C-alpha cells in the first residue's frame, strides 16, 4: 500500500520524538517489546515514561534527552499508512534533519506552548527549509497544551504568528491546519480531547488523512539519470533510473549535456528484456551509439531540461561558502563558483544587510558552473532542479534552481 511520508519539524525539546512515540502507541503501531523497552529505559534513568525512547535508540539520545539522528516509524490509521520521519531539532544537527526531511511530502511542525518555549529559531528555520525542500502539506501542532492548562489564550498568539510567517515565505496559511495537542497526555492525537472544547477542528491523525502526495506523472516527458553500465547478452548497456515519463525500444532519446540523439536498441527492466518502461523504474538500455562513460548524464525529451553554464539559485548554507564549491546533482559532481546576491535570515525570512553568508543562512546566489550540466528549474521538475554542495569535501548545504541562465 502507498505510504505517506511525513517529517517532523520544530525546535529541540518541543516534543517531536515524543509525539511520534505517542502516535505509535495510540494507533497500536508499536510492539509491546518496544514500548516495554522505552518504559524500562525511563525507569532506569529515573524519569517519567518517555514515548520518545521508542524512536531515540542511541544511548546518547536517551540519556541526553535529544534526537541525534533521523529515524522512521510507520503507522496505520483508518486504512491509510504513514511513515513519520523524526529529525533532530538542534541547529548543529541540521544536516541530519535535512537527510530525514528530504524524503517527505508532508510536514508536522511541533511548537511547544509551554512557558519560556514558544516560537524559537528552529521553529521558523525548519518551516523555511521544508518550503525549500518542496514539502507540499503542513500541519502545525501546538504541543504541551497540558503545561498551559489547555488554554486557548496560550494557543492563539502562537497560531497567529506561525500563520503570518507561513504567508511570508509563500505557504498559504489558510490551507494549513493547526491543532492544539499534548503528546504526553495524548490530547487531540487520534481522538478529540475533552480538555480543549474550544478547539473545533479534527484530531491530528484525522488532519493527516487528507494529505496526499502527488504521484510522479507517467504522462510527463521522459527524464532519466544515467547511472553507469552493465553487461547484457547484446553487449554493453547503460543503466538509468527513469524520473518521469516512459521509454520504449525503437524510440529516439536525447542525451544531455552531450546533446546527442540516440535510438534505444534494447531495453531491460529488472534484468529482463522489455518493450517499455516507466517512471521510477531502473532500466538498462543498449543504444545506437557508444558514448563512453556518461554516468551522471540526463536522458530527457523535455524542452524544460537545459544545459546550463550558470544557474540562479536559492542556497541554504550548513557551512558558510562563497566562491569555489563542488556541486552534486543526483550524486554527480561539478565544480562551480558561487556569487551571493542576497542573504536571507532563515529564522525570520527577511533579507540581511550583508552579502556574506553565515552558517544556517539562506542566500539568493548565482552559480557559474565549470562544466556543462543538464538541469531544470525546481518549479518545472524537482528531481533535476536541486543539488547539494560541498566545500573541501565537507557537506556545506543544499540548493534549488530558480532559473537556468544558459
Amino acid at each position: 500500500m502507498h505510504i505517506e511520508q511525513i517529517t517532523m519539524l520544530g525546535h529541540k525539546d518541543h516534543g517531536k520524538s515524543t509525539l511520534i512515540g505517542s502516535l505509535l502507541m495510540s494507533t497500536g503501531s508499536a510492539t509491546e517489546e518496544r514500548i516495554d523497552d522505552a518504559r524500562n529505559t525511563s525507569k532506569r534513568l529515573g524519569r517519567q515514561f518517555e514515548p520518545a525512547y521508542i524512536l531515540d535508540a542511541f544511548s546518547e539520545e536517551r540519556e541526553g534527552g535529544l534526537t541525534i539522528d533521523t529515524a522512521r516509524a510507520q503507522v496505520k490509521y483508518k486504512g491509510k499508512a504513514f511513515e513519520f520521519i523524526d529529525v533532530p531539532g538542534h541547529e548543529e544537527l541540521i544536516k541530519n534533519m535535512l537527510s530525514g526531511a528530504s524524503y517527505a511530502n508532508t510536514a508536522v511542525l511541533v511548537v511547544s506552548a509551554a512557558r519560556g518555549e514558544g516560537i524559537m529559531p528552529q521553529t521558523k528555520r525548519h518551516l523555511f527549509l521544508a518550503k525549500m525542500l518542496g514539502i507540499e502539506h503542513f500541519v502545525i501542532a501546538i504541543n504541551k497544551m497540558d503545561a498551559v492548562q489547555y488554554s486557548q489564550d496560550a494557543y492563539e498568539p502562537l497560531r497567529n504568528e506561525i500563520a503570518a510567517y507561513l504567508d511570508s515565505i509563500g505557504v498559504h496559511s489558510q490551507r494549513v491546519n493547526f491543532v492544539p495537542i499534548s503528546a504526553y497526555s495524548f490530547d487531540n492525537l487520534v481522538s478529540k480531547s475533552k480538555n480543549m472544547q474550544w478547539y473545533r477542528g479534527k484530531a491530528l491523525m484525522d488532519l493527516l488523512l487528507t494529505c496526499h502526495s502527488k504521484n510522479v506523472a507517467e504522462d510527463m516527458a521522459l527524464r532519466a539519470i544515467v547511472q553507469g553500465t552493465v553487461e547484457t547478452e547484446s553487449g554493453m548497456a547503460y543503466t538509468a533510473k527513469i524520473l518521469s515519463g516512459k521509454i520504449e525500444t525503437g524510440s529516439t532519446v536525447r542525451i544531455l549535456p552531450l546533446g546527442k540523439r540516440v535510438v534505444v536498441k534494447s531495453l531491460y527492466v529488472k534484468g529482463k528484456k522489455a518493450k517499455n518502461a516507466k517512471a521510477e523504474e531502473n532500466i538498462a538500455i543498449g543504444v545506437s551509439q557508444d558514448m563512453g562513460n556518461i554516468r551522471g548524464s540526463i536522458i530527457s525529451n523535455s524542452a524544460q531540461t537545459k544545459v546550463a553554464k550558470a544557474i540562479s539559485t536559492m542556497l541554504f548554507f550548513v557551512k558558510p561558502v562563497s566562491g569555489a564549491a563542488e556541486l552534486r546533482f543526483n550524486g554527480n559532481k561539478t565544480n562551480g563558483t558561487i556569487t551571493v546576491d542576497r542573504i536571507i535570515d532563515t529564522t525570520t525570512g527577511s533579507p540581511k544587510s550583508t552579502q556574506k553568508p553565515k552558517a544556517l543562512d539562506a542566500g539568493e546566489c548565482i552559480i557559474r558552473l565549470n562544466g556543462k550540466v543538464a538541469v531544470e528549474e525546481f518549479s518545472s521538475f524537482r528531481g533535476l532542479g536541486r543539488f547539494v554542495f560541498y566545500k573541501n569535501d565537507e557537506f556545506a548545504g543544499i540548493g534549488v534552481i530558480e532559473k537556468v541562465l544558459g
Partner: protein
Amino acid sequence: MIEQNLDELEEKSIYIMREAKERFKNVAALWSMGKDSTTMLALARKAFMGKVPFPIIHIDNGIDFPETYEFREKLAKQWKLNLIVQKSEIKPEMSGYACCGANKTVALKKVMKEYGFDALIVSIRRDEHGIRGKERYISPRTKDFKWKYKNQPAELWNDYSSKLDKGGHIRVHPLLDWNEIDIWNYIKREKVPINSLYFSRDGTRYRSLGCTHCTVPIKSNADNIDKIINELKNTKVEERSGRQQDKETAYIMEKLRALGYM
C-alpha cells in the same frame, strides 16, 4: 506490520546496489543464508541481468544449522555465486555479545583485508531494531570498523556522499526500507528459494536466523509462506526476540554495530 509496495521497494534496492557497484572499486556482499540476504541476492540478479556480479561472503562459525549449510551449497551452485567462506572461531566459553562481537567481526575484518574490499552490502532493515533504524543507505566505517553514528554523513536527493575513511570501508544497505512482511511477500511473489528452518516443524519455527548457540525458535504452526505472512500481519512481537545477542544489557546493538557487527 505495514505491507509496502513491492515494486517500489525493489526499484529502490536496485538503484542502491547499482550505485554501489558504480561508486566503489571492490564490492562484496554478506550472506547468512537467511531470508533478508537471500532476498538481496535475488534483487542483485535483477539489477545485474541475472548475475550476482560481486563476491558473496559467508562468515562461518561452524555452528550454523545443517539446513543452512545445505541451503548454501544448493543456491551457490544454482545461482553461480562467487562464494567466499570465512571461518570464524568459536570459543566454548563465549556467547551472545562477546561471541558476535569478537568472532564474527574479527573474521569479517580478516576477509575484508585479504581481498581488499572497499564496500560491503549488508541486508539490514530499519524495522529490525531501533539502532538499525538510524542507518544511512550508504554508510562509512573506519579502518577499525567503527561506525561513527554520532556524525553520519548527509544523505539526500540521490547524493550518497559518504567518503571512504583511509583504510575504512563503506556499508551498503539496499534493504533498509523493507519490512519483515515485505521480505516474505517478495519471496512469495518471486519464488525466492528459502532456508527451510523458517517453516514450522513440531510447533516451532525460526523467525530470525543466527547460529545454533544463540537462536531460539518461536512457537508457530506456520509451515508455508502464506501462513508466515498471515502470522506477521497479526504479531505484536519483535522479529529478533529469539536472538540472544540483542538483549543482554542496554544498548547492546549499538555496541555491536559500533564495533563493526552487521
